């Protein structure tokens, strides 16, 4: 594969060679910051208000108006930068010039060559690190609705513009091209959203557009260290779309190259309905934004004291919380991702402190407490429940029922178990039940003895049925093995 000077990747010259391809993805994520007001004026920053009710001379671009930077927007951008391990540095604002009705000043105030946050990383649950090139401040545009032509821009009869969103503060987070699949890109966006929520920087809702993701996708022969020609994919409205679009786009490029054709640098539009990307514009038509320093704003240079205060005020971040819970429970950080995502890590840690059993706590947090608020449970009661389980006093099914009761009305797990009639079966009673089931199913027992592991489940199920779920499956399995003489 060669990359020519005009940035066009050509397929491998040798026909018929099976090339292994690697997908390379970098993401640009725009997030609205959770401020009360806009970036440069005191208009309300709110989603869903009546059109054109949160506007003033500044965000309408009226002559003579002057922008003044919102301290809280800067603070939130710094919080995000620190959370991403970025260098938070002195920065400048530039004017990005283009002419479009949703941008009433005819330029967008953004940060160009001197952004506030540079060189960070995001750690994903599987432990991989994705580089962050920059996370800079800029203002959002107004919102256009295209009327006629089925809502498509090109065929529209006219457009309607609401300037409530004009001037809302954004951070644009640009990753390095470190992602290798649609699935990894989804994991990145999920983790980034968790960090945005933890820092309070944004509510990060893709469906409301407060988090918008564009993907730069290219492919290259596996093992190559040069980048292929990339296409930027837009209109990704969910992490599901993101994953699908990347897989589709990588496949499209691989097919082109395999056929000896070339990938042309383009901006492409993801169509969720037909599951394809379509060309929006090619590089030749790329915009020339003629950036220049914004003369109405002075430099932004947060001092050490401010940066220090921001760092001190950060909460524990998802990656740290995963590491902490993993260390306490003796499993890999990736295995506690769901528990941390649900915010149940503090509960599990408190229950561990109260003498709970780690494995059972993780299982309950991941499978049995979905949607339950973490403070709905007394950690000591949860700990006691798991102790009863490992002592063989409750089966997994019974423990689940007791847990549901604990969540609903609290109380003591031992008493709840008694009230529900979940007394542990005496060993000899269970042994008798096992023997009865074996006698009743001689054919299956012969297969079991012959080493057919598949009938184990059948026997456990029969014993459960006979004991109305009071048997401990692990004990039943042991008894079966003993009886088979294994």
């Amino acid at each position, binding site marked *: 594969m060669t990359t020519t000077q005009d940035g066009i990747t050509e397929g491998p010259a040798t026909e018929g060679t099976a090339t292994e391809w690697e997908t390379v993805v970098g993401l640009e994520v725009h997030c609205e910051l959770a401020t009360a007001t806009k970036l440069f004026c005191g208009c309300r920053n709110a989603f869903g208000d009546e059109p054109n009710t949160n506007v003033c001379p500044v965000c309408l671009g009226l002559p003579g108006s002057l922008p003044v930077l919102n301290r809280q927007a800067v603070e939130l951008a710094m919080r995000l930068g620190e959370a991403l391990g970025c260098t938070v540095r002195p920065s400048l604002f530039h004017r990005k010039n283009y002419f479009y009705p949703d941008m009433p000043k005819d330029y967008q105030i953004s940060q160009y060559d001197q952004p506030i946050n540079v060189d960070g990383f995001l750690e994903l649950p599987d432990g991989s690190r994705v580089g962050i090139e920059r996370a800079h401040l800029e203002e959002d545009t107004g919102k256009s609705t295209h009327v006629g032509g089925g809502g498509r821009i090109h065929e529209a009869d006219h457009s309607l513009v609401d300037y409530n969103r004009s001037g809302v503060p954004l951070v644009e987070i640009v990753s390095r091209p470190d992602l290798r699949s649609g699935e990894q890109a989804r994991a990145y966006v999920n983790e980034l959203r968790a960090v945005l929520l933890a820092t309070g920087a944004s509510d990060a809702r893709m469906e409301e557009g407060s988090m918008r993701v564009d993907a730069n996708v290219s492919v290259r022969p596996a093992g190559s260290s040069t980048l292929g020609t990339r296409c930027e994919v837009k209109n990704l409205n969910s992490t599901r779309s993101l994953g699908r679009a990347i897989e589709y786009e990588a496949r499209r490029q691989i097919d082109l190259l395999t056929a000896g054709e070339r990938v042309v640098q383009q901006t492409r539009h993801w169509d969720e309905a037909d599951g394809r990307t379509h060309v929006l514009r090619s590089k030749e038509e790329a915009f020339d934004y003629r950036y220049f*320093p914004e003369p109405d704003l002075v430099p932004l240079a947060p001092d050490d004291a401010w940066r220090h205060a921001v760092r001190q005020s950060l909460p524990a971040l998802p990656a740290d919380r995963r590491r902490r819970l993993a260390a306490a429970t003796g499993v890999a950080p990736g295995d506690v991702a769901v528990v941390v995502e649900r915010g149940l890590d503090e509960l599990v840690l408190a229950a561990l402190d109260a003498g709970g059993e780690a494995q059972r706590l993780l299982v309950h947090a991941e499978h049995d407490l979905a949607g339950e608020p973490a403070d709905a449970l007394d950690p000591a009661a949860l700990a006691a429940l798991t102790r009863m389980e490992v002592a063989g006093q409750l089966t997994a099914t019974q423990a689940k029922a007791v847990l549901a009761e604990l969540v609903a009305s609290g109380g003591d797990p031992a008493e709840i178990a008694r009230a529900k009639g979940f007394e542990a079966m005496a060993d000899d009673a269970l042994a008798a039940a096992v023997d009865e089931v074996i006698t009743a199913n001689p054919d299956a027992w012969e297969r079991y003895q012959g080493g057919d592991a598949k009938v184990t489940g059948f026997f456990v199920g029969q014993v459960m049925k006979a004991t109305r779920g009071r048997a401990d499956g692990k004990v039943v399995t042991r008894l079966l093995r003993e009886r088979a003489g294994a």
Partner: protein
Amino acid sequence: MGAMGGRISRDDVAYVAGLARLELTDDELELFTGQLAAVLDHAADVEALDTEGVVPTAHPLPLANVLRDDVVRPGLDRDEVLKAAPAVEEQRFRVPPVLGELP
């Protein structure tokens, strides 16, 4: 350097006009190419100055961190605002269909 001395070409002017979504006639292109070249010549006088050791200036004011608190202030009345619109539909600014691409 003369007005057409090559500092800016007619194609440059046509390109910039395109970015600004301006449609210029041949006569206008001719006129503006000359005028813009004169402006650039004037700006180029700065190049004659000795700027050795002068730190690049982002802003003439010796200020940084001019910030305001994140407090909502009343904006403009919508009816007032929409009076300035070329046309209004559903309380929004009604504008011609956009030609060309979203950036």
